């Protein structure tokens, strides 16, 4: 009886060993993303697995090849060669190596163990996520950046695809005289824009400022086009956003303007928020410079709540124009003090002259 008992015990002890061995996990999918929200940008590669997997990682002598080995794993995804971020981790190759899968990651720069993190994640039945192995590869040679808002330019880490790179038919130097400038007074017609606490409408401020700006630029020898000179929609009443904004961009593009200035007044729920800002979109290499030149002139207009700096913004008129373009936000119409000051012709003309100074400075004249 005792012998039978020990035999059964031995069988029971052997069963877990028997069950845990042998069946390989399947690597079912591999995907990646560039994360720019950390102090240093990194590429994250995530591999979906059908079962928990043990992994090891190593870096080659020259530091440009990182190999992650997934033990007892079969390759079940068609993604064998993956192109990733050429500035951080350019590619990953997935291959079966005996019983394992090797993930070979190439980096443009030599990296070390502090630049790579490999970890596993459990299956998440709640959010329907499988077992995963995650590989993070940090960008080399980049100083950690702080988060900031406002005064410094923040070029997009991912320039939009299919954006216009410029017709090549615009000038960026040689003085303001002879240059073609398009001015776009924001809103108009059926679109009032933002409305201040005392009923002042944005469209009724952007137009007079723009008319002063037209005069200031023409006095310096520039040729000026306007998207509107009266209180009208540019495309038509109650047009869609794309139609209306596209119509404004067309004025600048079709005239092969050297620069586009879109004039707006900002608004926000908190009435104490105020200040002056200039937006740009990095598409030509000169957009940020134009923004900086203009903002440096207008930031100190009296009566406004400070310099909000230049900022990159995915604004339609900036993105779809073929030449360097800026959108100025001349204070907050939602701020009672600024709403009042904006109605003053002296302030409107002051803004216009300063914007013209900034544009002239941009062209080197």
């Amino acid at each position, binding site marked *: 009886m005792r*012998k*039978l008992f020990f*035999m059964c015990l031995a*069988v029971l002890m*052997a069963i877990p*060993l*028997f069950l845990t061995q042998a069946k390989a996990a399947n690597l079912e999918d591999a*995907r990646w*993303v560039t994360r*720019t*929200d950390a102090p240093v940008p990194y590429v*994250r590669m995530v591999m979906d697995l059908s079962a928990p997997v*043990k*992994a*090891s*990682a*190593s*870096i080659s*002598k020259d530091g440009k090849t990182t190999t992650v*080995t997934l*033990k*007892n794993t079969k390759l079940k995804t068609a993604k064998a060669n993956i192109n990733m971020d050429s500035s951080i981790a350019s590619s990953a190759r997935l291959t079966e190596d*005996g*019983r*394992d899968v090797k993930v070979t990651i190439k980096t443009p720069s030599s990296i*070390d*163990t502090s630049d790579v*993190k*490999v*970890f*596993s*994640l*459990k299956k998440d039945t*709640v*959010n329907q*996520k499988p077992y995963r192995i995650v590989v993070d590869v940090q960008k080399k040679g980049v100083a950690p950046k702080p*988060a900031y*808002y406002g005064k410094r330019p*923040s070029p997009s*880490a*991912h320039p939009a695809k299919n954006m216009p790179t410029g017709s090549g038919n615009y000038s960026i130097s040689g003085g303001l005289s002879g240059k073609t400038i398009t001015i776009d007074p924001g809103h108009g017609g059926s679109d009032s824009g*933002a409305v201040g606490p005392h009923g002042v409408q944005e469209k009724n401020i952007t137009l007079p400022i723009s008319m002063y700006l037209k005069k200031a630029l023409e006095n310096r020898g520039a040729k000026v086009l306007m998207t509107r000179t009266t209180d009208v929609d540019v495309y038509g009443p109650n047009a*869609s*956003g794309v139609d209306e*904004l596209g119509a404004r961009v067309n004025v600048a593009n079709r005239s092969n303007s050297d620069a586009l200035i879109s004039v*707006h007044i900002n*608004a*926000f*729920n*908190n009435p104490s*928020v105020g200040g002056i800002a200039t*937006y740009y979109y990095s598409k030509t290499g000169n957009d940020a410079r134009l923004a900086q030149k203009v903002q440096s002139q207008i930031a100190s207009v009296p009566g406004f709540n400070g310099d909000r700096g230049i900022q990159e*913004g*995915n*604004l*339609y008129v900036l*993105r779809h124009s073929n030449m360097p373009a800026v959108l100025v*936000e001349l204070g*907050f119409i*939602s701020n009672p003090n600024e709403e009042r000051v904006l109605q003053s012709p002296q302030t409107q003309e002051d803004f216009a002259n300063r914007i013209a100074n900034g544009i002239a400075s941009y062209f080197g004249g």
Partner: protein
Amino acid sequence: MKLRKQVLSILCVGLLAFAAGCTPNQAPTTGKSEPVQETKVNKDAETTKTSQEMVKMAFFVPTEDGSGVKQSTVEMEADKVTPKAALLAMLKADRAQKYPVFSKDIKITSVTVKDGIASVEVNDAFVKGNGGDLTVQLQMAAIVNTLTSFDNINGVLFVSNGKKVPTVGSFDTKDPVKRMTNLIKK
């Protein structure tokens, strides 16, 4: 009886021998060039726990001074952490502020994720972009940064009445909007 014992003994020995001979981690040597540096593998880092456990769900709320968006968290049951839940928590937190950025008429009805892109169904009140460019910018930053906090989301599209929204206010939203890191305030 004796025969039965013998058979059982043989079976047990056989099972033990079979089990001992196989391990899940055998990896044949390849004879390739030796690596110089080994990275340590961190095991079992958990981002979520199984249902009925409480986890912290992150979302980004516009700041009342208009300077950007700030991360907040709320404790939730793990099985309730979804992109839509995160957006609804964000809206709730924003509307509890003295100066909410999302007006009451703005509605977010659904979030669908496919191939890393979240499609957010919104209503006309959001698409019109009333309230000023800064308002729209922070609304977008709150939505986009909340959703891209999820591992499987790296871009956001806006949808209204089933159709992709090409512009929100003055902003171009034709392509998936990526994480707006420059507007994240610590």
